[in-house]
Structures are given as structure tokens and as C-alpha cells.
């Protein structure tokens, strides 16, 4: 079918219906790309058509003359979202491309270059979480990993979800409880994005701090699902990607979560047990790295670069606190002591399980600058040979 006739047919349909129809056309185009080994030019042509269909008939961003149209109102948006979630929940067949086709369509719908669609994606994922739309969540997980969990796109998505489930309706966060078991990859990537947001965004002295309900749920996730943090590492995306897609290297949430635990005492006055719990679960999870990633080459759990950054941030903050105060290393402020101990524990476990990847030299250099508390000294002497 030619591209024009497809459009003619679709134009005869009313708004929500045209979306539905367009989606199936788009899927057909994608599946065709995956299965038939068609010529490259053909592929590009079909991809272009799919993109055109998406702009005109799915998101209704332009009219038939490719002129910009008035934005959908919120109720129309809702109708669109309904169609989309329905489509991902029920409308993918395993025979034709399976996950790969679904993910291809999904990625075509929400390419990371289209920031405007991000808001719609947030809503879509938010609805999916509520309505247990697992396929859609999995597709989102893949998307996040492919464009990077710490990319702006993913972070916007994470922020949107946090806003929905923790800021606006804190009581509905219970719904997220069994998310790791349902959509582990999505949860893991969501976690990585989340961990990136807090204690980084905001001003230097007043960083964004996670709410208690968020902390609780994350602690639950990590402690009850030991494999969760490794989900991105362990899942094999090769067959879920569009034709010719290369799986992106996965990032685990470990450094981000430990960052929370290490920095929290330095920023938060009151003693918050939640961080201790989170720290413990994260440590336990990290101890199991050899179980989930048996081969040492695969064990890219903790990036040395990220770790170096964490140590630097931590060091700067401590220096700021200790500025002008003459204090013995053995007799530091308890909260500084706590932060350093948590950092040392993390480093100790990471070194012990051999989970750090990348060039460690800079990391060790930074580590030496920190006030040398006892645990840190022990850790460094234990791993002298590496250092």
C-alpha cells in the first residue's frame, strides 16, 4: 500500500479511531522492517512513513498539509493515551517480531529528541503503573536503557512519576510496591534515574532530598529483590531491540543510592534511620554481585568514574564543613564520621566483590585525600596491592 493511500484511509477516521488504526499500520511497517530483509532504501522510506503517520495521526501534531495544529486538549490527550495503553497491553503478537516490534513502535513513538512528547510518555507510564500494563512498562525499561538512564529524557520521566505518585498522591505509592517483580528492568532503570536526581539537583547547599515514602519504597525494593539492582546488567536486550539495534551499556543504581546514604548525614540534621536501612540493603545487594554476575568481565556494577565523582563531592562537602575547624581525625563530628564510614563500607564491599570497573587510579588518588578514619585506613591497607 502506498503511503498516500494509507493516509487517505486514515484521514477518513475520527480522532481516537485514527490513532488505533495508525498504530496497527505503523506496527506493520516496523514488523516488515524486522522480518523481511528488504532493501535499505525501502527501509528508510517505510521508517519515514511511520514517522509521518505518528505525527499526523497518533499525536495529531500537524494537519494534512504538515502545518502545526492546535495542541490536543487534556481530554483528547486522555483518549489518545487510552488507545496507546490498550495497544501495548493487548495488541502485539509474538509471531510477528514480538518484543522487538513492540519496542520498535514504542521507540518510534517516543524518540528522545521529541521532548514535547515526554509529558505524554510520563502520563502513559503513570497510567501503566496504575493499570498494571506490564508490556508497556517493559518497553519503557528498554527505552530508558537505550537512551541512558541518566539522560535528560529519562530523568524527566522519573520526575514525572515521582510527582504523580509521591508528591500529588503519596498514598497511592503502595501501588509501586510490587513493581520490581512485574517489571524489573523498568524498575531498575527508574531507580537509577531516581538515584541520579536526588542530592544532585537543587542548589549546592540545599540539594533535592527524597521523601520518606520514596526512601521506604526503595529500601523495600532493594532489600526484597536482591537481583533488582542487577536487572539492567542481566537482561539481554538483543532480541528486544529494533533491527540493527545495539544494547547500550547498563548502569546500576548502586553509586546513586550510596551517594544518598553517604551525603544524607552531611545535609540532613536529624538522624534518619531510613538511610541506614537503605545503606544496609544496598550493601547486602552489592555483596551478591558475584552471584548475579558470575563472570568478572561482566561485573560492571560500579563505575570507577562515578565512584570518583562521589568521593570528590563528599570530600568537598566535608572540607566545607570542617573549614576553619581544627579537629582530630579520630574525633570528627559524628555525622561526618558516619558519612565517611558509609563511604568506606561501600568502597570496602565494592573492592571485596571486585565490582568496580574502569580505571581506578583517579579514584584511589581522591580517596587518599579524605580524612583517614579507621575503617578507611583498614580498607586501604587491605587493598594495598591494588592501590
Amino acid at each position, binding site marked *: 500500500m502506498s503511503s498516500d493511500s494509507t493516509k487517505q484511509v486514515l484521514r477518513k477516521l475520527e480522532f*481516537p479511531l485514527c490513532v488505533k488504526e495508525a498504530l496497527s499500520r505503523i506496527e506493520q511497517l516496523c514488523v516488515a522492517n524486522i522480518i523481511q530483509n528488504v532493501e535499505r532504501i525501502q527501509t528508510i522510506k517505510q521508517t519515514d512513513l511511520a514517522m509521518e503517520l505518528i505525527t499526523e495521526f497518533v499525536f495529531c501534531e500537524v494537519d494534512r498539509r504538515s502545518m502545526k495544529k492546535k495542541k490536543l486538549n*487534556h*481530554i*483528547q*490527550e*486522555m483518549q489518545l493515551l487510552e488507545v496507546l495503553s490498550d495497544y501495548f497491553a493487548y495488541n502485539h503478537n509474538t509471531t510477528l517480531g514480538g518484543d522487538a516490534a513492540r519496542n520498535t513502535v514504542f521507540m518510534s513513538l517516543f524518540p528522545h529528541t521529541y521532548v514535547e512528547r515526554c509529558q505524554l510518555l510520563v502520563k502513559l507510564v503513570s497510567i501503566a503503573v*496504575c493499570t498494571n500494563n506490564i508490556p508497556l512498562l517493559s518497553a519503557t525499561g528498554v527505552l530508558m536503557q537505550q537512551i541512558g538512564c541518566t539522560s535528560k529524557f529519562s530523568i524527566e520521566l522519573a520526575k514525572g512519576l515521582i510527582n504523580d505518585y509521591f*508528591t*500529588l*498522591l503519596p498514598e497511592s505509592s503502595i501501588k509501586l510496591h510490587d513493581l520490581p517483580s512485574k517489571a524489573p528492568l523498568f524498575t531498575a532503570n527508574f531507580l537509577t534515574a531516581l538515584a541520579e536526581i536526588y542530592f544532585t539537583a537543587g542548589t549546592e547547599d540545599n540539594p533535592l532530598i527524597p521523601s520518606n515514602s520514596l526512601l521506604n519504597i526503595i529500601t523495600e525494593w532493594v532489600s526484597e529483590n536482591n537481583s533488582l539492582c542487577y536487572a539492567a546488567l542481566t537482561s539481554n536486550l538483543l532480541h528486544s531491540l529494533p533491527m540493527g539495534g545495539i544494547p547500550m551499556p547498563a548502569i546500576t543504581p548502586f553509586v546513586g543510592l550510596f551517594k544518598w546514604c553517604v551525603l544524607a548525614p552531611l545535609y540532613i540534621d536529624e538522624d534518619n534511620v531510613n538511610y541506614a536501612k537503605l545503606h544496609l540493603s544496598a550493601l547486602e545487594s552489592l555483596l551478591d554481585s558475584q552471584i548475579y554476575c558470575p563472570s568478572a568481565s561482566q561485573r560492571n556494577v560500579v563505575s570507577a568514574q562515578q565512584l570518583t565523582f562521589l568521593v570528590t563531592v563528599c570530600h568537598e562537602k566535608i572540607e566545607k564543613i570542617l573549614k576553619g575547624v581544627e579537629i582530630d581525625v579520630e574525633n570528627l563530628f559524628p555525622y561526618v564520621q558516619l558519612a565517611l564510614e558509609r563511604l568506606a563500607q561501600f568502597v570496602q564491599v565494592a573492592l571485596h566483590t571486585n565490582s568496580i570497573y574502569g580505571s581506578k587510579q583517579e579514584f584511589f588518588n581522591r580517596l587518599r585525600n579524605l580524612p583517614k578514619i579507621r575503617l578507611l585506613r583498614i580498607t586501604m591497607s587491605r587493598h594495598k596491592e591494588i592501590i
Partner: protein
Amino acid sequence: MEVTTVCSDSQDLLSELRTFIAGAARLTETNHINLVKIAVSLLKTLPAAREAILEYFGSVFHHYVTRYLSLLEDGRLTIATSSESDVLVEEEIPLIEIQDVLCSFVKNNSEAWAPIVSTWSLELLGDISSRYGSHAQVGTTLNERLQLWIVCSATRTLLDINTQCMSRLMYSNTDSCINALLDMSILHNPHFDWVIVHVGSSFPETVINKVLTCGIKDFCSSEQNTKNPKLNSVVGILGHLANTHFTEIKNALVNLFQWSLEETVNDKNISMQKIATVPYLLHLASLSPVLLRALSVDTLQSLNMNVLMRLSKLATDWWCYFSSGRQGLLDLVVHLLLRLENGIYHILTMLFETASLTNPELLSVSLTAQEIIELLASEMDLLLRITDSTPPLIRSFYTQMPSLKRLLLSENPLKSNYSTRLFTVLGKYNSQLLSSCVAYLLNRATTNIQIEKMVEITRSLNDIKFFSYAFSLALQYDSIENIIFCEDTNWALVLWKNIQILLQYENRYSTTARPVFYGLIDNLGHIFESLKQHHGDIIISRIIASVIHEILIEIHRPLSVEETLVLTEATVLYFYSCIICDQDNTNQLKDCQLANNLLIKICLLSNVARNQACRLLVEIALYPPVSPIFGAIIKPDIDCIYPSEVSLLKENIKQGNNLMVAQSAMSVFHTGIIGNGLQEIIIKSNLSIEKIKQNTQYFMNALRSCCLLDTINILLDAVTNLALLLVQLISPDVMFNGLPWPEEDFCKVTVERDLCIRKSFDNTPLLWTLLKFVAIHRPALCYCSVLLRAITASLIAQWNSTSQGRSLKQNVQLVETSVLLLEILSLGQLLPPPLSGIRDAIPFLLPQHVLLIFRECVWNYMRDHVPSPALFTKDANGVMWRDSTLSKPTKQYTETLRIVMLSNIDKLGDLYNQLFTFVNTDTD
């Protein structure tokens, strides 16, 4: 197909969502009651759907508003009736549900929900207000709109929701709130005003402050553009709020102004805003009278020289905020000033103060102030000329008059120039105002500058009424002032000096119209009163008297009796104060001369005045406390020296029914009280004889002035009156006061009275002078017959006792008195020659001879020839004479004298020759 693991819970959710979407997408066939229920439950469970749900809620509200308006249109509902609730209550459940759910969100999680709900409700309200703004049922005035929408349940609910949000946000996120409000106000102007009024009155302080701040931020960024919609909306909002929250607005304005004066931190935006504050406030004030009023209360009061100096440095930066730069700024300031209702005094003081700065560094500042004053003056002039209405500034000018007048007294010539300028401009249209200014200055101007201003102001008007009013005010003020601050009589002195200056100025420079003069004439009563009032102060009274004198010279109308009486009394009092108070002889002479001149004028004007003047002059002169200055001796009241504890009542009872018969043993001669010794003369004038003579001379001059017919001739009637007056005053007895002299024996009956009269003469030498004066002007002395008789009788009695006495020595005093009496009788031609020569003989005669002469020649002659005016005839010159040829005494009366003289011819040869040789030849 893969089996999807969907639990029933999420299945329900999904179906709810589908129902909602289906319903919301096709509004026309929707049952709102059910759909709202679903939407509410979705809102609680499906956060991603909130925007769609709120949008749907919006359409629900629209639905209810349309319904409400159509009900109104059909007449099934009126705004006034309360039946609305009955009609709609069933169907309003959705509204209530929506309100409940939103409010509970805002309440429980305000930080997250309040901004969302608040923006939504404001936008919706704006949308509704402007969409139905032109609907027939919606009124045009703000109040109508407010009423209409408050009654409408949908909008009311929205407002409630919004208020709930605002109250949560007010302390955390005010700026965004107010900005949303302002933006909506601009977008939906003027339909949105009622919302602002409502919100504003719920949070007046915050809204007002924030509206002002937002306004200034906007103003700053859009300089020059006074048609700025945001500024107008700020004014609109504040204007609406001003009715109920004037104080808050007032305070907010002061705070803003104070804030702009604070030291700037290194923030370019903020310092820009601070600079723009004053132009901003000015623009606000120019757009709204209410704000102007609010500004004028406290903000203006907070201006002082320091603040002004600081502001002056910013002024150049302000020009860019006005369409025509500096001139625009000045024009605006002047127009605002004209509309000012309060604080005019403060403003004018500041302006004058600034305008008269002499510091060369501040030259431009003072020049600007001068320019403003000049602009203000000409603008006032123009306004008053072309319109009937008085601008508020001028009204407040009138009300603030008492304090504003103070400015006129300024010692700084520039300052007083400015105030004079303003006052004269106003005075052109309100002479009363100017009159009161002149009155004020009259009472207070002491320095040359002040007097100059006074003259300048008076020169600007030539209206008699104006002066008359001014003088009456000034004079009244003088008397009031005197009552309140008795110790300070300076006012009066200043006032009269100034009046004199004005009068002199007028006499010198203006020939035709004489407003000052006629103004004074209108106030003669007051003027006379004040002469009377100030007679104790010679300096003031001198000035007043001379002013009065000048007036009287040219007065063109008769004085009323009342005025005359007051003037007479005042003049007499003035005369006495001249004699008593003046120490300097030349001045005294001048003053007395002035008093005399006044008396002449007064007496010539009216007989009433003449009588009154004479009486007052004489009465005062004869009795204490004045009499000693004419040499009178005062015998203090016995009761004062020896306070008696005897009751008069008891004494009277003692007397019983006994008749007081003259000459009886009961007659008491008051020579003292037994046991107390002789009565002492306690008080004696300590003045020198020369002084007494001089005083007497002055007195006589004054009296003479009162009796003048014209400048030279004496009016005999006046002297006659004087004679009668003397009788009245001196003779205590009304009986036997007739002209005829009785038999000498009859004197025994009147002896007590005679002695009393004699005593008066002895104690009061002035009486002799008066009697002489009367005698000269014949035939007035006839009326004093009783006095002469009494003295003669007492003298005869005294000579009698002397002649029988042990000592033959001449009693000097007796002789003096006798000579005095005889001299008067001769002067008055009561004793014709040769009897008139007796007085020359007396000093050389023995007492018994004197007694004989008194009895035979004087008494008997007088007894037989009644001293009556009929004896006198008028000659060609109009002088009264007694024809000596007709009244020549017969031998019966002269023989005794002749014989006595003959027996003393050695001493009285010449006299005898004079008196009798001619007579003899004549008779023989």
C-alpha cells in the same frame, strides 16, 4: 496472545477510565452526576489523569453557569431571591463533590496541589467571567457583577476553592499567586475585577502588597508606557480594595516608599525598582484618586528634607518614566498637588523650604521647587478662573488656613514671597481668605519683611469690604487673644502699629479709593472698644487714638449713639492715661493735645458726647484714685482704718424712733471718733506743685475742649451743664438747692451740708479751678449758687468764730479761701462793683470787719439779688454781661464796706479810691 496479568483492582480502574474518557469526550449526552463521581474517584487514584479531569470539571462549571444564566433569563430565578438554592440543590451535588475533593487535596497536600488547583480555578473564573461577561444578565458595574456571580453556585464554589488555595499559598508562594491574578486580570479585563475584589478582601494585606510589588516590577520593565495594562489593572484592583481596606493600602504604600529609600544591595533589578518607585507611585496616584488620598495620608508625611535631598539625586532617572520627560514629571506633580486633599501644609512647607535653599550645590533642586510653586500658582489661577468647582487642594487650603497662615510670617524673604504669591492668587477668588490672611498678618507682622508682605497682599485688592472684614477679624482676634493670653498684649501693639502703617501708606500713595480708611470706618465700634480696652497702655492707646483722630478728620457719616458713647469714654480714659502714665513731658503734651483734639472732634459731632465727656472728665478728676494728681487730699474711709465691729443694725435700733433733727444733739460733725484722737490726713499727693499745676492745666484744656462751640468759642450751654454737674456732684442734698439765698439764719438748717460742701472744696483744689472756669463763662455761675452759698455760709461761721476767738491773728487759710470765693463771685459778676473789690480788702481787715462785710455786703446782697441768668444779657459779640449800671448795689449793701475801708484807709487808700470815689461822684 500473551496472558496479561491484570488484577481486578486495576481492571476496575481501567474501566472507570474508559467510562470517564467516553463521557468527557461527548459532553452533550453526559450525565454529569455520575461522571463527576467517576472523575472524583479517578482523581484520587490515577494521578496522570488529573489534567483531563480538571478540564472536565471546568466544563461542568461552564454547564452550571449557562444553566444559571438561562434560569435568570427565563425569570425563573432572580438574584434577589433565595429560592435559587431550592431549585438547584439537587443538581448541585457534583459541584459539592468537586469542591470536596479539591479542597481535601489542597488541605492535605497543599504544597503540591494548591498551585495546580489555584491556577485552574483562576483560569476557569477568568474564562467564565469573560465568556459570559457580555451576557444580558450580567450587569455592567462591578457591584452588579459581584452580586450576580456570588449568587451563582458554580462561581461561588470556584471562589471558595480558590480562596482555600490562596490561604494555603499566601505564605509560601505569594508571588506566583498574585502574578496569576494580575495576568488573569489583564487577560479578562474588566470582567475579572469582581474576582480580584473577592480575593483581595479575603487576603487584603498580602494582595495589596504583592499587587504593588508586581506592579512595580512590571512598571520598571516597561518604562514610559503609562498606558501599561498591568499598571491599570493594579490601579483597578487597589481601587476596588480601597473601599474596604484603605488602611492596608495606605500602609502598603508607605512601606513601598520606605523600601525604595533603603540602601540598595548590589542587585541591578532591585535598584532599578527602587528608582522607579516614586514615578510608579506618582502614576498610580494620577490614575486613581483613592490611591492619591492613600498616598497623601502617610507617605507624604514621611517626606522630610533628608528624604527630599536623597530623592533629588534620583530625579533625573525618573524622567524616562514620563512621556515628556522632566516637564511631564513636573506637570504630573502639580496636577497631583491640585488634587491633594490632605497634608497641604506639610507639602507647602517642604516646597518653600526647598525653594529657598541657598546652597549653590542644590541650586537645581531649589530652582525645580520654585518652578513647581510657580506652576502650581498659575494652575490654580487658571482653574479658579475657568471652573466653578474648587479643586481639592484649594478646599484643603481653606480648611488648613490657620496653619498655612504661619507660612506668611516666614522671615525668609523667598519663602514669604512664595506664600504671598499663592495667597494672592487664591485671594483673587476668595477675598475672605485674603482678609483672614491680612487679619493674621495685622496681628503678627513685626519685621519689615512681614510688614512688606502685608502691604503687598493688601495692595492686590482694593475692595472696601475686604478690608472691613480683615479689620473686623483682626480686632476680634485681638480681643479673643487678650482674653486667652492676658499676659501678652503684644498682639494689640503689633496690630495697631500695622493698621497705622497701612493707613499712612494709603494716605501717601492712594488718592482716590481709600479701602483701608473705609474699612476702618466699618469697624469703628471695634476700634473704639479697643481704645477703651487698651487705655492702660499709653503706647497702644496713643496709636489707636491717632488712628481714630485721622478717621474722625475725614469721617463722612454720623456716629451712632452707641459708638459715640464708647468713643467718648475711651477718649476720656485715654486722656487720663496720658496724664497718669506718661513720664515724658513732651510726649505728655502731645498726647494731651491729641486727646483734646479728639474731644473737640467728638463734642462737635454730638451733644450727647459733650455731656458725657464733661461728666466723665469731671467725675474721674474729682474722685480717687485720680483726684490726687490734681492735688486733692484723700481721707480714707474710717471704716477701712478702724474696722468697726459695731453692727449698723444694732446702732439703728439704739436710735429707736428718734427723729434726726438738724442741729439737734444728734447731729454729728465728723471730726473723728472720740478716743481715737483727731482724724489724720493719711494720703496726700506727693506730686510737686508744678506738676499739679501742669496736670490741672491739661485737665482744664481737655474740659475746655469739650465745651467748645467751634475752634475758639465756648458753648455756654456746655458750661451751664458743667455748673449743674458740679452742683450735682458736690452738693449731697437735693433740698434747698435753688438759686435764691435765704436769710442768713436759715443757714443753721443747712449747716451740715454746707460744711460738707466746704470740705469738698478744701480737699479738692481742682474744684476752685472748675468754679473759676464756670465763673468766667457767665452766667453759668448762677447755677452754682448753692455751692457759693454753702461756702459763704461756712466762711461766715468761721469768721464769726475767729472774730470771737482768743487770737486776733489772721487765719491765712481762711483769708485765702475767702479771697478765692470773692474772686469767683466777682468773676461771675455776681458781685457787681464796688462789692467786687472786697476780695482785695479782706487780707487787710480784722476778722470782725470781715464778718461784718460778709454779712452785710455779700450775704445780704446775694439774698436780695437772686443770682439768676436773667440778670445777664448778650452783647453784640455774643458774650453775656451783667449791666453794671443797672445792677449797681444800693448804699444799703455798700455802706458797711465803705465805712470799714475808711477805718482802714491807711492801707486801703488806693482801693477805696477805685471803689468809691467814682461811685460817690456818680451818686451824688
